[in-house]
């Protein structure tokens, strides 16, 4: 049932715009892969190239080992859920779901049975006789998903299927899509620009930028070990903090100097930072890996509070260290005022280092 998808140097141009730039990607059979990236980075175009709705300029597309580059969408064994749902307004829900099966000349009884089955799976069985105009956005979205999975496709493609739902419904549908994938196990490519969605749904996440994949890893890896400054700054709420730091060789190891403050690097970094041990680096650290002390002190990175935002479970501080602005998550009870001088300690194991020129992560 589930099939592997392979993109080989796929390129798609619209006039002068290169929407997809020589993309290589393998989606494993049965995997839930999320394409994540900012608006206009080519996610939808990549998905449409897999679907066959867009002719590639160069490169090849394989589904289940079969070269489908020249095949129309109908013959690729895919099903797609569109951002606008694209539910046919002139057909009832039942007819909508049955549409693809009818195109395949499936026997009538089987159509009825499978439509019923999938409608129950998505909890829309009592809506089968309605027209799309009589449905809410969330129900329409379910119909779109039902219409796709009733085909038992080898590959399921979804383009921001939750973006038109309100926040609460989105949360609910997200969990449901995850359950659905576990139940049917179809290879799924899911496009989103919402990184929370990506982190929660994906077996792996492909982070895209300007038509290229910059990192393809598991959610934890993408979150904890971003491959580039771009990924680090794009993923997470708030995104990773960056500090300008000076690398220093010391006796017994390596250290970093941030302004007047100096910091010992864990021994694991030994030998991973190259020959030049006297250069400027970008230190990256997540908000939750910074400990806040109400007073500056010995061994603490001095900082000044700019804004304090209570967020219920946590308190988000915006602080200034030298010229750099950091976001720090802290206990909501910690009494801090804007303008107050505080001390920070960074969890050494959670530090990421980036080369400021190549923007790539080190080690």
């Amino acid at each position: 049932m589930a099939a592997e998808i392979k993109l080989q140097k796929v390129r798609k141009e619209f006039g002068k715009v290169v929407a997809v730039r020589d993309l290589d990607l393998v989606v494993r059979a049965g995997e839930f892969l999320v394409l994540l990236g900012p608006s206009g980075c080519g996610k939808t175009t990549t998905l449409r190239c897999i679907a066959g709705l867009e002719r590639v300029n160069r490169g090849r597309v394989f589904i289940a080992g079969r070269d489908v580059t020249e095949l129309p969408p109908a013959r690729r064994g895919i099903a797609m859920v569109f951002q606008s749902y694209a539910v046919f307004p002139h057909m009832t829900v039942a007819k909508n779901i049955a549409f693809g099966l009818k195109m395949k000349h499936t026997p009538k009884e089987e159509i009825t049975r499978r439509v019923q089955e999938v409608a129950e799976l998505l909890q829309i069985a009592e809506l089968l006789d309605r027209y799309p105009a009589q449905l809410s956005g969330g129900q329409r979205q379910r119909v779109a998903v039902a219409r796709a999975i009733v085909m038992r496709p080898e590959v399921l493609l979804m383009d921001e299927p939750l973006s038109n739902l309100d926040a609460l419904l989105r949360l609910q549908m997200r969990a449901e899509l995850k359950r659905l994938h576990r139940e049917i196990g179809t290879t799924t490519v899911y496009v989103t620009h919402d990184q929370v969605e990506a982190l929660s749904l994906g077996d792996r996440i492909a982070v895209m930028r300007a038509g290229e994949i910059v990192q393809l890893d598991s959610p934890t890896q993408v979150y904890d070990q971003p491959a580039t400054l771009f990924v680090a700054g794009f993923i997470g709420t708030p995104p990773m903090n960056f500090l300008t730091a000076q690398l220093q060789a010391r006796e017994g190891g390596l250290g970093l100097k941030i302004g007047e403050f100096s910091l010992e690097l864990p021994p694991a970094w030994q030998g991973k930072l190259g020959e030049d041990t006297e250069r400027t680096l970008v230190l990256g650290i997540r908000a939750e890996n910074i400990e806040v002390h109400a007073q500056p002190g010995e061994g603490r990175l001095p900082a000044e509070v700019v804004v304090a935002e209570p967020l219920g479970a946590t308190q988000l501080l915006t602080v200034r260290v030298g010229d750099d602005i950091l976001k720090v998550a802290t206990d909501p009870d910690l009494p801090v005022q804007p303008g107050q001088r505080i001390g920070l300690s960074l969890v050494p194991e959670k530090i990421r280092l980036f080369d400021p020129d190549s923007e790539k992560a080190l080690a």
Partner: protein
Amino acid sequence: MNFRVLRRQTWLYLGASLAAFWVLVPIVFTALAAFTPKQDFYLWPKPVVPRRFSLDTMRFFLNTHGVLNSLLNSVWVALMTLGLTLGVGAPAGYAMARFLFRGREAFRLGILVTRMFPTALLAIPITVNFIRWGLYDTLLGVALIHTAMALPFAVIITTGIFLGVSKELEEAAMTLGCSRLGAFARVALPLALPGLAAAAMFTFVISWNEVFAATILTVQNRTLPAQVLTMLRVSPLYFRFAGGFFMIMPALLFMFFIRRYLFHMWGGATAER
């Protein structure tokens, strides 16, 4: 409490009634006159409810030499025009709505330019050419001219219609197993139907009402307006009313039958767009 709504409704209905009145009064009078016996026709003041009903005038009109024939001609010409116009215009409109092709804007403008030249100006060259091509005094010839008149509007109207049908719907159909053509036939076409019906109605009425070209291009095979025009000039008044009524009727009937497609929008196909 709903006073404002009520007042707005009242004004709305008042306005609508006035508009309906404006359109209907001449039609009613024409109809009454057409079915009044000759003898009562000149009665004044006119009774509100006709005292006597008679088919005599109508029968006489219908039996007049050439009328029935020209009626059939008119229907044929209008239907041919309809087929040609939508057959050419709807695909053109679809292409304008869906594809970015070189010269699309020029094409759009070019379509309108064809309406720049008055038919009167073109009458002689067209007649000459039609004689040469053997199209003179044929129904096809008249239908071709009517098509030329209706086509620009048909293209513009259908462009709008197909722009209103989301491209993603067709793409969805394609991912579900349709070919490009199948997706058009199963999704775009049914959704465009109300709009296409309107375009069809418009085309039909253009052809049905057109007098000038039909008069010039035919001798024997007259369409109804051309026939009636030449005939009624020399007829008594009540006879003209019968002719007038007959001219109105088919257009009304046509609208009546096609109306269903105009209003029947699947409970809000427009909202979906």
